[in-house]
């Protein structure tokens, strides 16, 4: 097995909120002990509801938020010992909002050429060639290089964002909801572009999304996150065809199915809303919404233990197979 490109070992990011004067200090455990790895060339889908800590995890991996504890290793080396510039050439990020993620006062050329200059590419012809090449790769015409972001549509802006992430030739790209801000008609184009680039450049992705449809389409492996913890992790088939955590089943049951190809199993749906990360329920965080809840769920935190090699689930009833989220409707 190849050495993991990125390895997280019980990584936690906590924030303190409030003050001693106003209601007391509370600790917000946005990411609470996440262990994950990403191998070269693979796409890991990271799924979860809004507020479960996906984006915080992304920012921590990018070094924008300091981890409270745990280890983050890039190509086997602790990220704290790796030079910031070397990290930049290894991991990059595509942002959710294509409108806020491009500097409105920089042309595309500058957005793409400046990082090269900062990373020591001084030859003008080389910079020019790499910018033009990258624009072509993401499907932009080179003559659009001197335009400003507001002259582009949302989908084109996201292409610029992808070009910027790839201009330093990284090995891992974290895509934080790369299509959720785009029109539905554009999403497939951007997803396919990301997949083409992955094959062409041998990239690894962490695809963060709350949209299981997207994750199902692109991911080799999937990790499901709930309130700062990974609750289930496994290959694409294992997650979608044999989900062992009731939260995973609830997510799958919630995929819109306009053509009613499947019958949603009513008990698979999650009740209520995600709890506040400031005041998570004791034991298994999911128990207030869980159809399988027993007393043990309130008392004990379930460990993320294997169901089968490579398929992990953090549920006391992980071996209770055969409660599918959906059943195929018999053909009429």
């Amino acid at each position, binding site marked *: 097995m190849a050495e993991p490109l990125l390895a997280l070992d019980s990584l936690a990011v906590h924030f303190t909120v409030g003050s001693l004067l106003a209601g007391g200090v509370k600790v917000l455990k946005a990411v609470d002990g996440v262990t994950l790895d990403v191998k070269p060339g693979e796409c890991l889908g990271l799924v979860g509801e809004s507020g479960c800590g996906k984006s915080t995890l992304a920012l921590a991996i990018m070094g*924008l938020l300091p981890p409270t504890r745990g280890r983050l290793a890039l190509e086997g080396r602790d990220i704290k010992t790796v030079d910031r510039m070397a990290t930049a*050439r290894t991991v990059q990020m595509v942002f959710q909002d294509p409108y*806020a993620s*491009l500097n409105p006062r920089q042309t595309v050329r500058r957005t793409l050429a400046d990082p090269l200059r*900062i990373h020591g590419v001084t030859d003008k012809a080389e910079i020019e060639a790499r910018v033009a090449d990258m624009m072509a790769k993401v499907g932009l015409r080179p003559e659009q290089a001197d335009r400003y972001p507001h002259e582009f549509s949302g989908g084109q802006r996201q292409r610029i964002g992808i070009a910027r992430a790839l201009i330093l030739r990284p090995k891992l790209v974290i895509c934080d909801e790369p299509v959720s801000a785009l029109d539905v008609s554009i999403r497939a184009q951007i997803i396919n572009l990301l997949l083409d680039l992955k094959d062409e450049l041998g990239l690894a992705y962490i695809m963060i999304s709350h949209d299981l449809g997207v994750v199902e389409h692109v991911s080799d492996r999937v990790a499901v996150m709930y309130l700062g913890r990974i609750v289930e992790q496994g290959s694409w088939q294992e997650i979608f065809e044999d989900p062992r955590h009731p939260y995973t089943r609830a997510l799958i049951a919630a995929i819109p199915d306009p053509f009613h190809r499947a019958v949603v199993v009513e008990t698979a749906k999650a009740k209520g809303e995600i709890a506040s990360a400031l005041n998570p329920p004791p034991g298994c965080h999911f128990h207030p919404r869980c159809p399988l809840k027993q007393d043990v769920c309130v008392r004990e935190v379930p460990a993320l233990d294997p169901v089968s090699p490579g398929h992990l689930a953090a549920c006391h009833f992980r071996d209770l197979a055969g409660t599918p989220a959906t059943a195929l409707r018999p053909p009429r």
Partner: protein
Amino acid sequence: MRMPRLRLKGGTSLWIGGTLVAVAIAVAVAAPLIARTDPVMDANLMNAEIPPGLEFPFGTDAQGRDIYSRIVYGARISLTVGIVSQILNSLIGVTLGLTAGYWGGWWDDVVTGLTNLMLAIPSLIFALAIMAILGPGLSSLLAALGLTAWSYSCRIARAQVLSLKSQGYIQAARILGYGDLRIMFTQVLPNILGPLIVIATLGMGGAILSEAALSFLGLGIRPPFPSWGSMLSEARDQITTAPWLSVFPGLAIFFTVLGLNLLGDGLRDILDPQSTTRRT
């Protein structure tokens, strides 16, 4: 009949303001050429307090000096004070505000505290104190006005940085390995320039008014040298008997400050790239 539509880039306020400021600057630069007499030396008590007329378009003062020539020379002082003091204020305020907003932490606390302190002291009183220490004159006037009014641009800059800091492109720049200074000056500053330019041009008008106030109080430009403020100061005893002594310097201040304010507004409009779409 259809009137041809006049399309002005940046709108009318930019053009009216720009014209007023350009006229003021042109007058200041060309003062020796367009002044009719020497503003200080050509006193002639025989001509004292002549109302505006053909011989003296703006009239004469108590010493018989031509008001028009004195206003022309006064433009040099007013504009120098306005422009130089605002450059000083902006440099101090933007540097402090940008670094405080971006770095946060103890530095932010220090800068915010200092800003609040500066805002709590009436700036004219502060300027008076500096003038009292340094003594009257142009350079102490520049120091008094250029070091006391930076808190506005500092506050604006800091608030703008705070709202921009979480934008994706700032995060992207950090991820790409941009240094802090590079992010501040290439990513943040160009995007907060609009309001800062408006603040600076408004401040120029304010500085011209403060110069007038200080000169009026006798702490700015000393007679017999002409500044619009000192002319107003000298004219205050004759405001009922010879109103032209105060009306014309007052109008000069009014139009220059108005021009600066309109210019600031207009500049903000064209500095925003979203307001001008290029055609392909």
